[in-house]
């Protein structure tokens, strides 16, 4: 087995997609690593990541630090219904949000699951809320569930992922 193995890859087709699902994830790796490039069909919806189709409003939480324009901020979201990512690239924009997600020890059945996220949402287009502001940051998230992660779902808070959005799942194996 290689150190990094491709598990699955999804590229959204011309019709768009309201969700992307990685199911039946093998328990043969140590960590999971996901790379996402995406853009919403309209508006500025958040990308939501959930595990094992768990949509409870009490099991996810996130601490974030991020910068946009010349501003640096941080915040914390407790008791949420998913791990969320802001994306401020707009419908008519040709830029894509890039998200890099590490999920260590995903098959551990003793501990809650952490995610470590690094992401960048470029924006070179003005609207009433955001003017030429790129958006980048990191997130640490917790899923308060000790079950092994066997599936991962990506959705938007509204609308659909556009064509050519890509979601790639890798497995990492330690020595």
């Amino acid at each position: 087995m290689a150190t990094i193995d491709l598990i699955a890859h999804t590229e959204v087709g011309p019709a768009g997609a309201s969700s992307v699902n990685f199911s039946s994830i093998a328990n043969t790796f140590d960590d999971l690593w996901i790379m996402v490039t995406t853009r919403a069909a309209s508006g500025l919806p958040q990308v939501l990541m959930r595990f094992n189709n768990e949509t409870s409003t009490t099991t996810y939480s996130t601490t974030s630090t991020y910068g946009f324009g010349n501003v640096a901020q941080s915040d914390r979201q407790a008791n949420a219904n998913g791990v969320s990512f802001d994306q401020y690239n707009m419908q008519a924009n040709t830029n894509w949000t890039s998200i890099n997600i590490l999920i260590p020890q995903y098959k551990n059945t003793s501990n809650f699951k952490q995610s470590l996220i690094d992401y960048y949402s470029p924006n070179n287009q003005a609207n009433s809320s955001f003017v030429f502001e790129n958006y980048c940051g990191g997130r640490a998230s917790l899923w308060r569930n000790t079950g092994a992660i066997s599936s991962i779902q990506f959705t938007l808070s509204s609308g659909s992922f556009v064509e050519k959005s890509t979601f790639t799942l890798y497995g990492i194996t330690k020595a």
Partner: protein
Amino acid sequence: MAAYEAIASTTLTTNTQTITFSSLPTTYKHLQLRVYARGSRTGSADVAGIRFNSNTSAVYFVHRMSGTTTATAQFFTGYTYCWLASTLASPGLSSTVSFNSCVADILDYGSTNKNKTVRAIQGVDTNGNGLVEYVDSTWINNNAITSITVFCVNDNFVSGSVFALYGLRSA
């Protein structure tokens, strides 16, 4: 030949303060350390540090940008170790049992004419507490790195913590 290979790993079965990767191979260009860890400290969070070649002199400096509910940037000189995590989850941070996740890149570790840098992203969330940070450190030393010591600064890493070292080839 793979460009990214697993070199060594340690999964703790008892609480342990120090983990050392020694006799590092010289066949890679860069190293990557992936850490999944929690501390046993009560009263407050702990700190995870990293040293090279057992050098405990004050020849490290650290720059970090972090976020809790506010964003912070700090710079420290004269440290005796590099930081992997300024806030390591422990009973002193939260009763919610969470582990820090950290990915640290150690570039050109075999060079004998460069000070060594560690670039890391790490974080933990406890549903009401936590931190995410980008932490960059420098070891002011031109020697090739032959050993890496990861340690819990005040107490121990708990059982179940995982430390995995990877190598990246350039040719």
